[in-house]
Structure formats: C-alpha cells, structure tokens
C-alpha cells in the first residue's frame, strides 16, 4: 500500500541524497578545516546558508535555477534531463538541505586531526590526495560517519525545499514529510497519523544512531 511505498521512497531518496552530498561535503569540510584562503569565510557562510534560511526560500532558489526556464534547468532540458517534479528534484532538495550539517560536522573532525601526521606523510612524499585518503579521512572517520548520519537524517525530514521543487506527486515525488502535509491538508487524518508514526520511528532511529556515534567518539554537541 501507499504507506510502504512512501516510506521506501523516502529512505531511498535520502540515501541517494546522502551519497550525492558526501563528495562535495568532504571536499568542503577539508578545505574549510585545513586551508586559509581569500573568501574562506564567504564560502563558509554560503555553505551554511540552507541551515538558516527558510527551507521554502532555498526551494524557491532551486526552483528558479532548475525550472526548464531557469539557467541550469534550461541547459539540462536541452540535454533531455527533467528535474522539477521528478524524483531527482527530491534528491536535489534533500542534498542541498543536508549538506551544511554534513560539512559542519565533518569539518570539526578534520580540525581535530593532528596536523603533524599529515605533514609527516607529506614529507615522506605522499601526494595531497593520498595524505587525505590514508591519514586525514581515517582519523576523521568518526566525525565523518556522524556527519553522514546527520545529513541523512536531515534529508529524511526535508519538506520546505522539496514541496517547492518536487511537489507532492503520489507515487513519484511524495516523501513522508510531504505526504503528511498533503494528507493533513486534504482531510485524510488517518493516513497522516500512520505516516507520523513511521516518520517518528525513523527519526528516532537516526538520532539514536547519531548520538551513539558522536558520544562514543568524545565529541560534544
């Protein structure tokens, strides 16, 4: 029935969004933790924007960029790629909203890595990429895992940006959060209540996991 389908779709989309946010997230976290450069604070602020801006505003920006008449959406449309009102829009909204949490958490991990290990590896001739994958990343792993869980959890609950760019299409873009809203709006209270329970259970699981991961590694917050 609908319930299982919506739950499964939401989990799958959040997983895809997490996979999408990891590569740029790791790069940004490492960049912000390890480098001083012009515009660093600006980049830091920019990455964190979706955390503070109303999600609907972020969604509106995404919609303007990715709509078939928008600058990015226009290019994609010519390539035959449709984003708005498809599952891709769901993943996009989730990834953008989850990224700041991922970057902030992972960055704290990179900052805690002792620079001397990295320097030693570099003096022994390891290329920067190798230093990153053999020294920095493994040492920051607990924080990166926590960042992944947090990013995933944020993606799961995404609503504001999703409804703007992906809409609420049954069987195609309707996530748990969006479905709860749509069901409540249309007076289907029983379905809404059932989904509420499911989403509470998932959120509980994700939070419990992230708390366990962060507390075990002595990280505060």
């Amino acid at each position, binding site marked *: 029935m609908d319930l299982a389908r919506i739950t499964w779709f939401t989990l799958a989309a959040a997983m895809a969004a997490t996979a999408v946010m990891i590569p740029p997230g790791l790069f940004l976290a490492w960049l912000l933790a390890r480098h001083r450069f012009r515009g660093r604070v600006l980049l830091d602020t920019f990455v964190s924007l979706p955390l503070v801006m109303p999600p*609907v505003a972020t969604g509106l920006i995404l*919609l*303007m960029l990715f*709509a*078939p*008449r*928008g600058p990015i*959406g226009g290019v994609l*449309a010519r390539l035959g790629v*449709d984003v*708005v*009102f498809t599952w891709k829009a769901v993943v996009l909204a989730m990834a953008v909203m989850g990224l700041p949490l991922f970057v902030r958490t992972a960055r704290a991990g990179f900052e805690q890595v002792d620079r001397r290990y990295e320097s030693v590896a570099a003096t022994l001739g390891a290329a920067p990429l190798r230093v990153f994958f053999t020294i920095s990343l493994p040492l920051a792993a607990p924080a990166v895992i926590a960042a992944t869980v947090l990013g995933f959890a944020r993606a799961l609950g995404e609503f*504001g940006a999703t*409804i*703007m760019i992906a*809409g*609420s*299409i*049954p069987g195609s873009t309707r996530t748990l959060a969006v479905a709860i809203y*749509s069901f*409540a*709006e*249309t*007076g*289907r209270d029983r379905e809404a209540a059932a989904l509420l329970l499911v989403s509470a259970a998932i959120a509980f699981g994700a939070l419990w996991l992230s708390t366990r991961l962060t507390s075990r590694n002595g990280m505060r917050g």
Partner: protein
Amino acid sequence: MFPLVVLAVTLAQGSGPPLTVSAAISLTEALEEAATAYRAAGGTAVVFNFGGSNTLARQIVNGAPADVFISADEAQMEVVEKAELVVPGTRAAVVTNRLVLVADSRSPVKAVTDLGGPGVRRIAIGDPAAVPAGVYARQYLEAIGQWTRLEPKIVPVANVRAALTAVQNGSADAAFVYATDARIAPRLQVVATISGSQAPRIVYPGCAVKTTRRSAEAAKFLQFLRSAPARAIFERHGFIAPPDAR
C-alpha cells in the same frame, strides 16, 4: 506548498481591529480591491488569509480565528458547515467562475484533446483530493471520459495559483485553472474555456464564521461583496455574479 498567507496589514483607524477574511487564493486581487473600496465606503479594515480553500477550511475547523470564510467550492464550505461553524443565514454565493485550460504560448497544446499526446508530460491541477480547482478539473475530465487516461500525467499542487506557476516556469506543460487566474498570466494562452453541460458549476460561497466576535461586521462585509460596486470590481477581474445576486 505552504498555504500562502498574505497579510495585508492595514492599521485599523478607530474602527476596531481589522476583520480577518480567509478566502480562496483565486480571489486575491479582486478581494484586495474590494476591501479597499469597502474601506473607502466607510467600512472596517480587512486583512486576508489567502490559500487553497481546503487549507483554509482545515484551519477554521481547527480553531483558526477567521471572521469570514470564502471558499472556491461548496465542498469545503460544507467542511466548515459540518463543524457547525457557519453563522446561520450568512452562507451565500459571492461569485462564480469558469475553468480554463492554459498552456505556454509556444506549447503544442491547442485543445483539451491534445493533453493525451506525447508532447504533454505533466498537467498541473490543484490536488484533486480537496483543492477546489483540482476537484473541478477532475470532475470535468471524468465527465468527458479522459481522467483515467490523463491521471498519470497529473501533478497535484497545493492550490490553483501553484498550478498556474508550474506552467509559467515550464515545470508543467498545461494546467487547469480558473479563467480569472489566466488573466494574471498574460504570457500563457488560454487553450480552452470549459463550458457546456459537462462543465462544472463553479460557485464561491461565503459565510461568517461562528467563532467570530464580530458577526455583524462579518455579515456586513459579505453583504458588501454582493453589492453593485463590489460586483463591478469582481467582473473587472473576470468573475461572474451569482444568479441570485444579479
């Protein structure tokens, strides 16, 4: 989409707090103009909460402090009536409207029958589960025997204006909206105006909400909306006066 809450906060000048009117989003421009005229004629100030009628009805049933409710269909008015929140004797038709099919001016869609074609991937309508414009669109498509065929292409949105926007920014190929909505989107073409025996009867009922402490003011405003000056404003925006007010 979030219920579009438009708060036209006008400070009440000595005539008590403004009247809160929860009204169907399709009435936005016309009602704002009517409220200005009402004020100019010595009436009380009015603030609006515009949204999909289903959203508004749910808000009212859950205790939202609206003085007046104007729905885009009888079904959502019925939701408020069933909760015994309609002030008896105040429920009356305010305006009527027509459904149209809109598409981009460059779109290949030239008739309702083109919607089944491969060039049309998405048709935006209000959520047919409750949003009046979507319910009307569904009723019409069912009446002409096209609903089952077109349903996979349907994108249900939060209210009729969201359907209009979806076509404007290219996210949807066509949308069923009210004739009055199409007028505020001059870049779109009205492919078809739904009329004839299969066209849904689109009536906007209004009422004073029982929780109001200002039922006299609420009734007065509703009366004004059915007066000749207000009718002129509505007609300028493309609405049609209900038969009993003509």
